[in-house]
């Protein structure tokens, strides 16, 4: 009997050990969830907690470079609501903030600063409620509200995008995408806004992919000079079409024969035959190399949420497609931001600064919390070559296809484009910078399905230049 009781006790002990171990395992797993997985779970887009928490306190403001309010919190009953004084004008950049539909733009990428959630005391749990000032920090953008508004008005009723950056710093001065939407109305209008076929939520500057058309020729011109396939005086005889064996023909847009012209003249009139010939001279390896040099294969960083450019597979390109790529057509697709950066490289002595949108984070009392310094991103070309291309681009505006962009008393440099695309009429392009002798602003304008860059996009660029240089 005694022995028997001992057996029973031994078995019970085993079971007790097993079951208590199971509970200890739960304790470990709970620790894993609450410590290791915590950050992932907090940041998960479906977790509405931070969003809800941010409603309980006034979030920080989003300001333009001179302190103009682009977004602020207004008290409505117990909680706070976001107000956007500029409405549709800066909608894609500033973003929206909705309990139901989440956040976008700066509201999303800088939500931790705006809600003040990035402080280390947030990890103190209940104690943090005693220590925090219960409000978020302000985010000061590089954006200039006046330039932004001008660009928005300049686009008129067209679909398209305009981006203006300071070539010396990479600071984004204006970023307009049309059609737009009113972030004040996001909850009421969501169904309409989110299903609209013209995609008003899309920031076309960073997320719209377009064939760059003739604006790309400035890059081919630089490459031809760098690779020494042509010198400044050398002329090429341009007929109305370039015959590429076996059976391809690259045509001028008006079937105009330019005759014997040099590089500068060819850029001014935007000769397809001339740049098609240059592309063939460069060959696919060097062509691929140019895109590499100007950063088309690299991301500019997370902040702007830019989509990657679509480049052709160069090694398998036939001669016809290679010539097409050289005039910005074929399967090549890039964002307007990239074209503004390309223009800025010739404005900034061959250097591309990393584009950035947020200048600094400040506390409620205006105290500086964090600044974002300009950062050199790439040096695709030399100051001498940049200067050469700069001068050619001045000629484009002075007496080439881009005269509509000229401003009295200011030297403007530019390049127009008329990009054929599979979705209907050609897109009108303009890229450039001003003043050409002391560049302060570089720009890219695209107007979807609007026809000729010289007559549609260039006048818009002119208005933006004017506003930015004031």
């Amino acid at each position, binding site marked *: 009997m005694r022995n028997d009781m001992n057996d029973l*006790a031994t078995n019970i002990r085993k079971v007790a050990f097993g079951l208590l171990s199971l*509970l200890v395992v739960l304790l470990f797993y709970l620790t894993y969830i609450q410590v290791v997985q915590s950050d992932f779970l907090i940041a998960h887009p*479906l977790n509405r907690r931070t969003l809800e928490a941010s409603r309980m306190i006034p979030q920080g403001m989003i300001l333009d470079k001179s302190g103009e309010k682009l977004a602020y919190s207004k008290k409505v009953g117990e909680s706070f609501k976001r107000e956007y004084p500029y409405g549709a004008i800066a909608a894609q950049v500033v973003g929206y903030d909705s309990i139901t539909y989440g956040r976008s733009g700066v509201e999303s990428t800088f939500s931790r600063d705006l809600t003040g959630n990035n402080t280390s005391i947030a990890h*103190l*749990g209940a*104690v943090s409620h005693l220590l925090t000032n219960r409000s978020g920090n302000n985010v000061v953008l590089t954006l200039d509200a006046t330039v932004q508004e001008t660009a928005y008005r300049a686009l008129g009723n067209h679909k398209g995008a305009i981006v203006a950056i300071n070539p010396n710093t990479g600071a984004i001065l204006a970023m307009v995408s049309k059609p737009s939407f009113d972030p004040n109305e996001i909850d009421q209008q969501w169904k309409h806004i989110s299903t609209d076929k013209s995609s008003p939520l899309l920031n076309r500057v960073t997320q719209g992919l377009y064939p760059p058309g003739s604006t790309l020729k400035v890059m081919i011109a630089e490459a031809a000079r760098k690779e020494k396939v042509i010198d400044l005086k050398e002329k090429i005889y341009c007929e109305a079409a370039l015959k590429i064996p076996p059976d391809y023909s690259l045509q001028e847009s008006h079937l105009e024969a330019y005759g014997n012209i040099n590089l500068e003249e060819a850029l001014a009139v935007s000769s397809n035959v001339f740049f098609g010939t240059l592309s063939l001279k460069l060959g696919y390896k060097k062509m691929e190399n140019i895109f590499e040099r100007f950063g088309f294969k690299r991301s500019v960083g997370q902040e702007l949420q830019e989509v990657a450019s679509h480049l052709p597979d160069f090694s398998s390109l036939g001669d016809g497609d290679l010539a097409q790529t050289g005039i910005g057509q074929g399967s090549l697709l890039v964002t307007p931001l990239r074209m503004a950066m390309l223009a800025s490289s010739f404005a900034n002595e061959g250097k591309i600064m990393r584009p950035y949108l947020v200048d600094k984070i400040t506390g409620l009392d205006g105290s500086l919390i964090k600044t974002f310094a300009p950062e050199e991103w790439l040096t695709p070309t030399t100051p001498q070559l940049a200067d050469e291309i700069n001068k050619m681009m001045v000629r484009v505006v002075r007496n080439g296809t881009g005269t509509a962009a000229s401003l009295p008393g200011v030297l403007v440099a530019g390049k127009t484009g008329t990009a054929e695309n599979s979705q209907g009429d050609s897109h009108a392009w303009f890229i450039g910078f001003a003043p050409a002798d002391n560049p302060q602003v570089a720009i890219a304008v695209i107007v979807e399905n609007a026809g000729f860059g010289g007559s549609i996009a260039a006048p818009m660029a002119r208005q933006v230049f004017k506003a930015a240089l004031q």
Partner: protein
Amino acid sequence: MINTRQLERNLLVVAGIIMLNGILAVNLAHSVLNYQTLGAVTFIFAGFMAVNIVLCKIGHTGDPLFLPLASLLVGIGLIIILRLKPELFMLQVMWVGVGLSAFLISAILAKRLEQIAYFKYICGFIGVGLLLSAILFGVDIGGNKNWIIMGPVRFQPSEFAKIFIVLFLAAYLSERRELLTLATKHYGPFVLPHPRFIAPLIAVWGLGMLMFVLQRDMGAALLYFGLAIIMTYMVSGRSSYVIIGMISFLVGSVICYNLYSHIQLRVDIWLNPWSDPSGGAYQIVQSLFALGSGGIMGSGLTYGFPTMIPEVHTDFIFAAIGEEMGLIGAGAVILLYILMIYRAFRTSLLSLMPFSMMVAAGLAVSMALQTFLIIAGVIKFFPLTGITLPFISYGGSSIVSNFILLGMLFSISEVRGCDAK
């Protein structure tokens, strides 16, 4: 040497202060002092102290940890229910009051535990009857088809059935432990006693499967089935029972998985909740968000958003604790259960009679299984099962039955208390 009742009283005061502090915190966070809730908490505290005094008067020497551990768990439950569903707070207070009376009664009645062994079949019938009543007349409330409604009274029979089933199994098995140990029949690699000796076990297994299939109550099925297997193992020491039991349950589960879409859904949700986070897996994903957002320190009482989880005050109350009290709070709850279950097993091992030994061990097993199944479900360690968290979840059946269970354990621990020497 400190008197055990004095020790119990001191610990109850500590638990009472923690409970009062929590209730005050919830009150102050809403910037209003609700004297009703403070009065209710004082009432609960007084109730625990009264139980202590009565036990003292009638000279009990039971384990001094059971009551303070229960009062801490009950306190945490009350705090979180006041925070989540203030309208249910007073009802829960009432249930705790009823539970305390039930504790006293069962602690006193269980002194004659040995006599219950004579009525083992009656216990068995009551247990099976309760389970069958839920299967046959069960009403669906909040997705669980295990409620019985009789006029104004509604309760969950399976909460009470577990006590009777434990009593029955303990009596039946401790009587037949030689037969089960010295098995006579050989079936391939397995050695089993004559079928008629294990027939009741098969009946409990069948009942478990029936609940699984008809009631869709995976949690209760696992609980009863696990209870039967583990108790048989404790008596026989033969792992073949466990293996055969596991295999038969696995076979049953696989068949059910293939036959029933809701079981497939539960398992699929468990395996990959992120494939359908706003559909079927909504609850579990929200629960994980709550736990993750709570982190180590928690958001602080009333500063979290646990109400984003549907049914948070019953099935998912543990996630709410994890969000607002953090790993510190939720981990403490698990530790409290570990301590309580440890003391329950200790009670069993200190017991002198095989029957009371088995009863205590069986109650400990049922408490451990239930705690494991619900917490593991909420933190996605295991497929979700809809059973209550002992002493914490909202609900009369759960509170009262767990106090009865604890009263029995207390009484058994008294037979040879911790300071008996």
